[in-house]
């Protein structure tokens, strides 16, 4: 699984961006997005803000869980009380290998499905696939993944609170602190 994590301010401006890979199952923690996917990621995350804006009025949790899916990428969200949004895009693929696209005659990026999620089964038998593999790197819809992401968000939220308590920082400005980044990376390594 590769991750693209982004903290988005209230005016939809990104305050912090980070790519990392899974550290579970012997993963080395390096993101393996293809060039194409890397360029698409901010677009996808930005577009799912629409759903966050809608969900925030019906859901009183801060962790909104998995809110959107675009092709093989899934987006989970955490909403802080100041409407700052933590967006995590996760693309499932086996650890330490780049996602390989399935050879299909009529499939063009960015809709190319990746090997871990065959398109045909993903529609009809989502329930069965979650029972077959529950590991975090393989199955973005499993409760285990949901829980891991919740923990990750919780930790990042704590770090983020400390960062914005800085009297010279505002909730709408970019977070440039190297310590903050280190902490987020550590949280990612710990839970994802």
């Amino acid at each position: 699984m590769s991750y693209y994590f982004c903290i988005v301010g209230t005016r939809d401006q990104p305050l912090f961006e980070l790519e990392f890979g899974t550290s579970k199952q012997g993963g080395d923690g390096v993101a393996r997005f293809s060039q194409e996917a890397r360029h698409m990621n901010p677009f996808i995350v930005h577009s799912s803000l629409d759903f966050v804006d809608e969900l925030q009025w019906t859901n009183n949790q801060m962790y909104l869980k998995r809110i959107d899916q675009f092709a093989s990428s899934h987006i989970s969200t955490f909403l802080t009380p100041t409407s700052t949004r933590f967006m995590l895009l996760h693309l499932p693929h086996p650890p330490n290998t780049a996602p390989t696209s399935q050879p299909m005659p009529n499939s063009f990026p960015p809709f190319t499905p990746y090997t871990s999620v065959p398109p045909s089964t993903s529609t009809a038998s989502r329930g069965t696939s979650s029972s077959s593999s529950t590991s975090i790197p393989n199955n973005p819809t499993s409760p285990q993944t949901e829980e891991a992401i919740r923990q990750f968000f919780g930790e990042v939220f704590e770090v983020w609170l400390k960062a914005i308590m800085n009297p010279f920082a505002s909730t709408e400005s970019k977070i440039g602190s190297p310590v903050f980044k280190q902490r987020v990376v550590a949280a990612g390594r710990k839970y994802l």
Partner: protein
Amino acid sequence: MTPLEHENGNPGGISQRPQPELALRSSREFTSSDLPNNTASNSSSQIRTKISLSSSESRLPLIAGPSLIYKSRSPSNLRSQSHERSSSSSRGSSSTTSAYDSNETHRQIIVRSFAPRVAVFASSDTEDFVKQKGFKDGLYSLLRPYGEHLHGKVVIRDSMGGSRGWDDFGIRIINSQALQTNSTHRADGEMVDRDARNLVNGSQRVSEHTRSSHSNETVKSIDRVLDRYLRTTDAASEGQGKAYVDLERTSYGSRSGLSPLYPVYLRKLLSSASIAPYETFLHPVACLIAVSSHHPAPIEALRQLYSNTGHESQKVPAWMGMEYLRYYVLIHDEENDDITKSTALFDLMKRHFGLHCHLLRLRRSQCVLTDDDSTRVPSCEWLSAEEEIEKLSMGDDADDVELSEKYILESDSTAIKNLLREMVTQSIVPFMESRVMTWNDQVASRRRGIGGRFISLSKRWTGFGTAKSTTLGLAGVSNPSGSNYDYQQGFYPPETPESTMRQLGDYAFMLRDWKLASSTYDFLRADFGHDKAWGHHAAANEMAAITSLLVPHAFSSKSRSELLDQMLENAAYSYLTRCSMPFNVIRCLTIAIELLKNRGPVAADDAARWGGKLLEFGVLTLSAQALTTERVAECYISRTGPDFAAAGTRKRQAALWTVLASDSWLRLDRPDQARVRLREASALYGIDNQDSAGLPFPSMQGLWQRLNSALRDAGGDDYAALIDTSVAQPDFQLDTAEEKEQLNAFIRPSILSSTDAEGFTPQDAGHIHPTSLDDSQLQDDGFE
């Protein structure tokens, strides 16, 4: 429903119709944009206090938030745009020009596409007669264009006893040969023979295989038609050739250049299905048996033709029901034959064959444009993709005008119109109504009642021991579970209740009695699932989903979306994985998207979601992908208005899908369309005005600049000029000079910044040039 819209037919008088409505709408836009704009307030209300705020208070920041962010267009700008829209609408010919109406158009296309078929069996002397009139393909080609548009209303009684008149009812007239083979026009004659044999006698596997290959072929031929149209529009825009009629009439989109191709694509998609056992829309409802007054023994000829329409002739596949209506036509030659003799003969016919007879009086001579009271034969709207290709390629070889436009005498055309109208209103519709009623009484209600459920249950239980373990491949065991499904050949024989039910559903659908159709399909989809008749299962699910969308207000939104999702998922999965028929998947989901979108903004979300799924299936060709992507964007754009601030705007989704559509067009090497889409996206992202801060995410620059530079390369040296010309099109106009300046200004930096994007071609558009984004920086960010 709005009255029938003539897309291809005579536009007389209709061009004026949409105007008042449009004027209203634009005036509404005036007021909404002239409002003091809720963007002014509220930078302080960003803080989200979940606990303390009451819900009425909390609405305010929500409404203000997005519009603050997306203050993309100034009010004056908006006003001028809406003005343009209304003015362009008055220019556009017959088709509607507002975005909302285009939905209704698509719904009508879908409804009209499921029309009863009438097969023509004509004697050889009749065919000779028609050929002399200049119709080389025989009688059916003469009748066909008139069948698609019956003049006047057709009144249909539904199962509840209510009547309703339909303006747009039509029938499709097909050649009798089309019944014998899967597809009418195949280049390889031997291949056709083999297919026919497979379908009649062959094993299931073989027929399944041919079916899937047909399905693939259909997808490909639709693609070829699209490609063709794309090229002709190119030529037309350069002034080198003339655009095809359909394209002109369907107006260059409503709102800032919706692709004019989409209605064409939808039509082709709906009319290209091949005849199959699992749905009976393409099975004939009636057949027209024609003989001319020249024939020495007309009654015997009619009897001979009649026997051809049955099973004994071996000309019709075994899975097709034979209980269709026979209609007898005597063609009288006005120039060479005696009318009294013909009338006598006609009386004889009526005595022999009953009431379903008609005397058609035609003149033998061929008609040309210069003749007195000659009239043009309307062109066929519902050609399948393969026929369309054939027609277009013929058009290339021969003289354009002669082929595309045929003329017959006014009196002949009136006679044909009267024949068809009489046949439909007096014979076909009553016949279908009575069939629906009989089947509903005898088969469906028995199945629906308690007893019927019990029977089907007990049948399943008695077969329990053996049924579950037997597989499809076991030859010889025709009914392993006691069901009527013929596993060996893969269909239900036409006499079985399942097959009759399916026909009932289809007849009800064609008569537009959607409630009855919906309930019938609902039963069938469970039955077919139990019998593991996957093709039938998928088709029944597809139709159940479509009918449930056509029934007005049948569901609350929650149950609808759940049930509908399930049905569509079943249909898509069975079609794709179990039967590998990609064409049907595309058709099913495209119809679902259109109908969902038609149901309003909440369902438009679902429509977009299914659009995304359809794209992920990987069954679409490039051009179909571009059109579908555009459609998804359209679904989201329909939810971007100011009314949706509270319900959840989809502006950002719309922007994403517009960018994707632009990318798809670029991949197709269609820079003009790509440019229009990109411009639209820049409006949605709010970077088309001066005080914008650029793209919301700085990391979006990569893809954005790649698109821009690719468009610049595609445009060549006169890129700036190209912008001007495309801008001058009626549907997309930048009104002020300074706006053009802005546009150039925002494109120019990309030209400077991507100096090394030279090797870029649209083919490898998927590949992104590494220098366009600070990848290295991103990598560094990733891990220390």
